[in-house]
């Protein structure tokens, strides 16, 4: 691309003196470099979108801060958006229907403070589900997202035994009307993917965008300049079951 740009420029404006020639060269080189760098700078801005053949990077670690003071009891916009966005249809059987994100309301035993919050896969740095999976179907992407490889999950449910957050669901029934971006299958285990298909296109998870109160701040934990990192530096946040030292990617404010 650089090459073409410099050629066309040369044809339009042919310099005569040596000085002018040097200035022209510097301008063309600058423009070329700018053109070359522009897309990558642009990509940085839109949440590290990547092309399909580009590998995910360890330099990014996706995470989320949930401000529980903004999360209204009784509101389940994030849950609905998740179900719709990922094609999760229930069968009216709450004990066996899948749930990738759920609303939980808790009360402090001592103070009586009531808090409502969404709970989903916490995308741990050291995920117990990945440790116990016999086939390696449970895995952590380089960018911190914990996923299930549907091709090699044998449906043993050991990961569900291991998860401290009960974040995983087993698909108990035949799946219909699947979304192309969220392949699912009866007899395998699944959980929140942080809407990985959207992240790869530079977009945000649907729960975060669906939250009318902006209670879910999504971003790159590794980037000190991201809005998420800046907020985490300013406010105190909680990890669920911090005693286990799993370093979850999801943090809660006001819990």
């Amino acid at each position, binding site marked *: 691309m650089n090459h073409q740009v410099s050629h066309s420029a040369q044809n339009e404006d042919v310099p005569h003196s040596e000085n002018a020639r040097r200035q022209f060269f510097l301008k063309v080189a600058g423009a070329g470099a700018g053109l070359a760098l522009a897309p990558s700078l642009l990509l940085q801005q839109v949440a590290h979108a990547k092309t399909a053949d580009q590998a995910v990077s360890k330099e990014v670690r996706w995470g989320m801060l949930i401000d529980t003071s903004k999360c209204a009891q009784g509101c389940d916009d994030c849950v609905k958006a998740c179900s719709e966005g990922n094609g999760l249809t229930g069968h009216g059987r709450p004990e066996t229907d899948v749930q990738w994100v759920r609303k939980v309301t*808790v009360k402090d035993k001592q103070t009586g403070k009531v808090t409502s919050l969404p709970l989903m896969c916490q995308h741990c740095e050291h995920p117990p589900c990945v440790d116990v*999976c016999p086939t390696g179907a449970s895995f952590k992407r380089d960018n911190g997202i914990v996923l299930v490889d549907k091709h090699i999950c044998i449906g043993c*449910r050991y990961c569900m035994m291991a998860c401290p957050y009960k974040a995983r669901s087993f698909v108990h029934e035949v799946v219909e009307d699947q979304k192309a971006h969220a392949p699912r299958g009866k007899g395998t285990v699944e959980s929140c993917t942080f809407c990985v298909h959207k992240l790869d296109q530079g977009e945000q998870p649907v729960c975060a965008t669906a939250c009318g109160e902006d209670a879910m701040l999504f971003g790159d934990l590794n980037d000190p300049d991201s809005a998420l990192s800046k907020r985490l530096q300013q406010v105190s946040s909680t990890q669920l079951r911090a005693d286990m030292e799993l370093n979850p990617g999801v943090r809660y404010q006001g819990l």
Partner: protein
Amino acid sequence: MKITYSELKGKSPGFFIVLGVLAAIAAIGLGSAYYMEHEGHHVTGMSNQIVWGLPHIFALFLIVAASGILNVASIGTVFGKKAYKPLGRLSGLMAITMLAGGLAILVLDLGRPDRLVVAMTTYNFKSIFSWNIYLYNGFLLIVGVYLWMMMERKMQKYYPYAGFVAFIWRLILTTGTGSIFGFLVAREAYDTAILAPLFVLLSFALGMAVFLLYIIIAFQSCDRPLGDGLLQRMKKLLGIFVASVFYFVVVYHLTNLYLTNQHAFEAFILLNGGIYTFLFWVGYILIGTIAPLAIFYHPTFGQTRHAVTLGSALILVGGWSLLYVIIIGGQAFPLEIFPGKEVIESSFFDGVVASYAPSLWEFLLGMAGIAIALIATVLGTRILPFMPDTLDDAVVNPQAD
């Protein structure tokens, strides 16, 4: 007198009736496995809260018993107790068949049993489950070689070595089975190393009880003599095993009772857990521990064959109850996701005791595993000389070292 072995004749109507009934149970169980697989697991009692159910109780029961059954051979080979040596062949055979029955249940309960080949070829070596696949397959192979060396005259000089390897392997195997639970950091019932030795001792007790029941029934059915002296000797050892399991169960619960954050879980199992409390106190403690010990060591009744049969059967009930309490009870108790807080609302059953009502399908699959193990045992003894012609006390000399 020299011990001789022979195949079952297998010509009597009784032989075919037994095989026919077992085959029918196995076929019905395989049918229910197909139904569960076809419809999806929502037709079972299992859910996203209780992810392992009745099939896993049956499977672990058989797997744990399998490794324990091999003890009979090990006591003869590794510890040199002559009275146990005639039982070595049958012990090895049953160790293989019981394990096969247990594994059949586990595999058929997978969400994707068709992906067994994936489980056999794709490994995550940090997973204790992966290690167990190696341990189970290795056990089948090692015990197979052990049996071959025991039964093939030319190889007999090597069989003590094979017996030693098999003994060590079986200890590691049951440690691995217990660690499937011991390595689960998130749940109050698990996350403790004591589950490994508890499972090892439980295997000693269940294995010996299963073996005793089998030889009592099989020798009587085949009209082969079985001496009460030998049974009494094995019964005494079984009593020690039962008491040892009890010791580990007591230590497990005492440790939890000392830790304040485990009090709610202990109250659930010991006091207010409904079916789990009932199975613990009545199933495991009363029926599975106190009753068999009282029967075994009763001065008069304890000396009879009925005492051995009854006591062994009660031990199986107790072991089954204990596994139910550990496996299902451990999952039913709610996960502590928010320490210091109580859950007042959740769409996913957070903070409440999970309910579990086993379905008929799960039960039938479990029974199929037992049937498969027994069919393989009966056919094995029909095809090859695993069973001694006589275990009369005059031949075996149960008082021998």
